[in-house]
């Protein structure tokens, strides 16, 4: 394509004002120096003058007025669920599953006897008012056990009558301690 043809091809867009500034400059420069191009430009102006965009659109709008489009709207299953609802449901389900799992594991361990029993002991001084004590901390446990063992030993040495419950607990504790040492 030579330069003249290239500029000719730009003429329709130049007339409709849809050309870039750089191309407008090229076309105007060429139009100023070429009578042939000027004549083509005038002819094209006439074409766009009789086939105006607005008139064509108006014609198309008139024609489409009688077109009635009705769609057979299908009854879509409403699968839409807000994201917040999905998130909440999932979280609740996860919590439930976790809770059920933990419960099952605990009951299975209880059945198998795997749960470490918390030692329940009575203090030697208050042996008559028997009160079970659940030990919460290893430090407290150690201090109390030392105290009990001391009292137990002193009772044996002084020939006092030993409470059978206390004796059983201490025996169990000592046996447990021996087993742990063997394992170690």
């Amino acid at each position, binding site marked *: 394509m030579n330069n003249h043809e290239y500029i000719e*091809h730009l003429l329709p867009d130049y007339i409709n004002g849809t050309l870039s500034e750089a191309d407008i400059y090229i076309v105007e420069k060429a139009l100023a120096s070429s009578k042939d191009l000027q004549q083509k430009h005038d*002819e094209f102006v006439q074409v766009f003058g009789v*086939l105006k965009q607005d008139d*064509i*659109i108006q*014609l198309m709008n008139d*024609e489409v007025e009688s*077109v009635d489009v009705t769609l*057979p709207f299908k009854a879509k299953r409403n699968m839409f669920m807000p994201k917040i609802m999905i998130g909440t449901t999932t979280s609740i389900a996860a919590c439930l599953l976790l809770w059920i799992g933990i419960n099952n594991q605990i009951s299975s361990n209880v059945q198998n006897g795997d749960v470490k029993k918390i030692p329940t002991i009575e203090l030697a001084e208050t042996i008559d008012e028997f009160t079970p004590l659940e030990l919460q901390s290893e430090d407290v446990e150690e201090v109390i056990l030392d105290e009990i063992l001391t009292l137990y030993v002193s009772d044996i040495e002084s020939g006092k009558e030993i409470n059978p419950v206390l004796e059983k607990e201490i025996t169990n504790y000592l046996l447990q301690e021996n087993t742990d040492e063997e394992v170690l």
Partner: protein
Amino acid sequence: MKPEQDILYLLEKGKTHEAMSILMSNYKRFVHSTAIRYLKDDDDAKDLTQEVFIKAYNSLDYFRGDSKIQTWLYAITRNLCLNALDKKKRKGNVIHLETLEVLSDERSDRLVNESEFSKFFKECMSILPEKQRETFILRHVEELTYEEISEMLGTSIGGLKANYFQAVQKLSQYLSSKKEGNIQ
């Protein structure tokens, strides 16, 4: 917001019916005028417009805005038009005499009611080959960019510029001949 953005926003929100209403009100003219250009029959074009929107509605869920809505609708319209023309060709032009008389009466009634400009515009478009006519309408009337037209018609931008120029040139020659009285 532009209709295209409105439609995509509504689709994202799952409001297909609302999206479809905007789509039809904004692109009905475009679809119908494209169908008329291909089928050259108003009644067929009306039926096809309906068909295009049903097809668009059924596949709207898959439209994700990769191409412009106008480009997408043009592709649907063009395909359905070509299929309809193909069907017509295969069926052959076997028309009974009674049907021909009815059609002839309808056509003459319509021509009487048709405006001067409408007749003139159809005449002008009829002298252009398909690609030039489509390029002329899409560029001059629909004001689409060459890039958009290129996507619709599958023609290079250079080719489209040449088509547009040739269309305007042919129309210019046609107008000159009409003026000189060579064409009635």
